[in-house]
């Protein structure tokens, strides 16, 4: 087990090195740190001096090592637009994205588990059929279309919910939160609902499939034979064992949600990390772009490593398969 953890961590570090190499090559080939630092109104001669002083004429690998060394200290360069360290900009945008993902995860849990269980218990009822049909069609609808449809109905036609920005936020220990104001919560509804529609069909199907499989097992048949109440068999005996695979997949899919926040945030003008990324592309803010790449890469690597290690604890075949 110990060896397995070490091997996974070495692999994670290696992946981070690859990501940082990609990031650095981008910065090296299309970024211009001198412009990021002093702007565009400086004579070429002065630029050359600054270039030399920053060590931009050093060989590639020397600069790359410097980049990695700085990155380890949390210094990912300077954002050209914000005139602030790139990491600081990203951290300031992170709460918005995280709150969106948290709200989405809550919606996912609250909707997909009851819907999946219902569809598994009554597979032939018309309601289950509707749920399954909707989830089939739902897979084919891109998230930005769902978002636009929601905006059109609830903001433009009915004028019930806001469609733009985060609304009023309160600052709690440096965390800009929209969870504690009525306005902030109202702004959160449409983005989180549309973000959850990406995963909802998948999760309903997953919960349903797992539940149906478990309802066929021997111990459930035994529970019926004992004459237990239906609710007890469904929700205590069967549901408990449905949960384990669902939770594992949930962890992995949560990472994928982060990717889709880019789309949702750009529809709703939600000022989180994804929105910042699109802005950075439009402003050619290379340092910020690279910093985002490294941060998101790190998030994925950490999630994957943790999930793998947890899985290694739960399922011994995983850690043995890797051993040669």
């Amino acid at each position, binding site marked *: 087990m110990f060896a397995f953890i070490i091997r996974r961590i070495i692999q994670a570090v290696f992946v981070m090195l690859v990501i940082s190499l990609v990031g650095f090559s981008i910065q090296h080939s*299309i970024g211009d740190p001198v412009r990021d630092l002093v702007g565009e109104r400086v004579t070429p001669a002065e630029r050359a001096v600054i270039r030399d002083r920053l060590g931009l004429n050093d060989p590639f690998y020397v600069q790359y090592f410097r980049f990695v060394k700085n990155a380890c200290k949390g210094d990912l360069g300077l954002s050209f637009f914000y005139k602030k360290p790139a990491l600081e900009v990203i951290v300031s945008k992170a709460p918005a994205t995280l709150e969106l993902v948290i709200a989405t995860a809550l919606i996912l849990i609250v909707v997909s588990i009851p819907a999946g269980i219902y569809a598994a218990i009554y597979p032939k009822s018309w309601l289950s059929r509707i749920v399954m049909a909707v989830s089939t069609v739902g897979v*084919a*609808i891109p998230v930005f279309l769902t978002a636009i449809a929601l905006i059109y109905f609830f903001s433009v036609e009915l004028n019930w919910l806001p469609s733009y920005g985060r609304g009023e936020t309160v600052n709690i220990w440096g965390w800009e939160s929209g969870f504690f104001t009525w306005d902030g919560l109202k702004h959160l509804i449409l983005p989180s609902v549309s973000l959850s529609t990406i995963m909802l069909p998948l999760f309903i199907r997953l919960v349903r499939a797992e539940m149906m499989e478990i309802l066929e097992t021997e111990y459930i048949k035994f529970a019926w034979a004992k004459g237990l109440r239906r609710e007890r068999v469904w929700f205590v005996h069967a549901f408990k064992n449905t949960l384990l695979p669902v939770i594992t997949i949930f962890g992995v899919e949560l990472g994928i949600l982060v*990717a889709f926040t880019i789309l949702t945030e750009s529809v709703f003008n939600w000022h989180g990390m994804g929105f910042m990324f699109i802005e950075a592309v439009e402003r050619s803010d290379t340092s910020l*772009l690279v910093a985002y790449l490294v941060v998101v890469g790190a998030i994925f690597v950490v999630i994957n490593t943790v999930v793998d290690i947890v899985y290694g604890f739960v399922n011994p075949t995983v850690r043995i398969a890797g051993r040669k």
Partner: protein
Amino acid sequence: MNTWQRFKNSYLFYNFKQDPIAIGSFCVLLVLVVISILAPVVVPHDTYDTATIDIMDAETPPVWMEDGNENFMLGTDIQGRDLLSTMIFGLRVSLIIGVGAVLFQAFLGILVGLLAGYFGGKLDAFLMRIADIQFSIPYLIVAIFTSAIFKLAFGVGRWEELALPLLIIIIGMSEWPKYARTVRASVLGEKNKEYVEAARVIGISGWRIILRHILPNTLTPVLVLSTIQVANAVMSEAALSFLGLGMPITKPSLGSLIRSGFEYIFSGSWWITFFPGVLLVIFILVVLLLGDWLRDVLNPKLYKG
């Protein structure tokens, strides 16, 4: 028995006839594909010819609404282009990118999968490690990053000229590990079978064994995967275009049309977003349904969830 006869008597065709959803999806897909191939002939207005566009026609609603114009059945977009024609051209662009990207990623992935599976050892470990690394990051993130970087590297003007081939490459690059894994798995299953052994014994070269003997036996899962990947690629393209990282508005795909219409949804011009959106969803839906059907038919052992 000729090929057509054989096809008519096959299990695949028999199953197809039994399944109304498969028949329906296939017909819709066929119509969409034929329309987009014949696009320059069938469109009512040639929207690529800027001389025919009049900005005064901009934001005309569909014909059945007030202020509708008989000339423009589904109305016009913000630049005064006929929406129906623009959509047909958009579907064509989306399809070209979707199919092109799938061909590209299939080529790349099959090559890697064959090499890794057949030769094994260090090469296998190396190639699969790369695939693992890329697989651990969602493909959409990879696609968004690469197109953002290409856009910055080329500059906006050059990007708009090169968008179509670049998008094919970007979307292809972001999804190849799926093919590599599928093909490698089936190669590992095939390579120790007797017919491969026999081929090796009579002295056929490695490459010939890979291409003529093993490759044909890995194609069933590749076919199933490809159907679903076309839908995925079209969806990725739409997402990229919607973010402004895809096709420019002068040669719009369905995604860029939706993006351009979105800005006008607050003023009530819903049709610019609605019709391209519906077309996109219909296309993706029929491809996914066909893919599901194909998977069930070709792989009956698979659990139908």
